[in-house]
């Protein structure tokens, strides 16, 4: 059973991606990430000395500030902030700069579906631009389930509204390795098979959820490749002097 998407994409096809780094002058790292019409700007300040009151002083602390396009900051924004803070904490190496705070500020420029994954990708790109030490990158994708049981990746706003359930999934990126094949295992499974964050809305069966995870993971390869290529391109453009 085929599903017809309005913009003519296949179910597993992502919208066109665009990413640019070092776009803002004041922050120590900044990036803008857009998937189709959804666009998010991320800025990173830090690491700065000192942590907040209840935070562990032996680790680096992260704070996320989410700024919506319009309206006041409410519960939805606070929830996004918490999810992003946990995601960032799990991908960054916390022991390198203890007793410091790094602030990540997310500004929504346009929301056309799949907003949180777009923001996570933007924050990751901004952290790379700022030089914050990380264990690996995070690639985020939105996977949703229609009434007839069909799975669709990277929906836009209209598609999201029609779906019965959707899941935001964040995976580690696919890495290059000089190790011979099959030796980058951690507890019996390659590191790329891990999952960092999963946020679900709506009702879906367990099998459908696992199918979502599989499809999402398959798409991370193209997202990782895009990120790597984008980074190499900007390195080439800016380092002709060597």
């Amino acid at each position, binding site marked *: 059973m085929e599903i017809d998407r309005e913009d003519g994409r296949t179910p597993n096809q992502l919208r066109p991606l665009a990413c640019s780094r070092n776009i803002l002058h004041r922050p*120590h790292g900044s990036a803008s990430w857009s998937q189709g019409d959804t666009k998010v700007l991320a800025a990173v300040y830090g690491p700065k*000395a000192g942590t907040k009151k209840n935070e562990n002083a032996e680790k680096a602390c992260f704070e996320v500030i989410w700024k919506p396009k319009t309206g006041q900051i409410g519960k939805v924004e606070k929830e996004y902030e918490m999810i992003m803070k946990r995601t960032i904490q799990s991908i960054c190496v916390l022991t*390198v*700069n203890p007793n410091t705070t790094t602030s990540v500020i997310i500004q929504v420029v346009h929301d056309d579906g799949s907003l949180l994954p777009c923001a996570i990708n933007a924050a990751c790109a901004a952290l790379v631009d*700022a030089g914050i030490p990380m264990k690996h*990158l995070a690639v985020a994708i939105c996977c949703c389930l229609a009434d007839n049981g069909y799975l669709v990746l990277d929906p836009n706003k209209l598609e999201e509204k029609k779906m019965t359930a959707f899941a935001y999934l964040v995976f580690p990126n696919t890495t290059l*390795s000089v190790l011979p094949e099959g030796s980058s295992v951690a507890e019996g499974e390659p590191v790329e098979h891990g999952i960092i964050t999963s946020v679900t809305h709506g009702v879906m069966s367990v099998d459908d959820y696992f199918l979502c995870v599989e499809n999402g993971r398959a798409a991370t390869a193209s997202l990782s490749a895009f990120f790597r*290529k984008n980074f190499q391109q900007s390195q080439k453009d800016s380092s002709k*002097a060597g």
Partner: protein
Amino acid sequence: MGTEVSTSPTSLIDQTVVPGDIVLDLSNMTNQTIKLGSGLRQDNDSISAMRAGKLRYSKPNKYWVESSHKRYIPRPEDHVLGIVVDCKGENYWVDIKGPQLALLPVLAFEGANKRNYPKFEVSTLLYTRVVKTNTGMNPELSCVDESGKAAVFGPLKDGFMFETSTGLSRMLLSSPTCPVLEALGKKLSFETAFGLNGRCWVHAAAPRIVIIVANALMNSETLSGTQQRIMVEKLLEKISD
């Protein structure tokens, strides 16, 4: 894209790496000492990258990831430009654009003793070197070199300080002399001090020369050698009339 995973690259040296890339396999490198520079960390039997940049190797055994950022990670024996933030007891607190404020002992100057030591006001610009950096502790600075002489270190008076990325200041400090500095030095006379933490200081007799030099340096970040020379020539032509 992404189909190159089937054949793992034999070496990532001089290639762009992103965080997570495993760059060295230690299991077949026993009995060797390897020095890891910035941007690399050890993960049991493999070395992986923490920052995105170019992987570099220098014989005999040094590996590091070269990247340019707006903040600075302190390393011993780096020369940096610091700004005094406070003076408490025996130390000056100095901002060097790093994750922590740095400490500069009041006695770390040539010929300083308890009764006679230099007193700096807040926001004085100092040329110092990094002595010690330990995780979790504030980095320590000093204004004397190993033999106890002041050499080039100390406060910088007058002039103009501007901030750049660490990559640009590395390029300006590289030897042989950077083309933009050579080209400027042929026609103008000025004094400069570059800190590896992304701060540059320029001083000349007339303010217009300071501005010309500062603008030329800031514009030269993404230009190649010949482009830098052309840029400087055009700039000097414009102002010579």
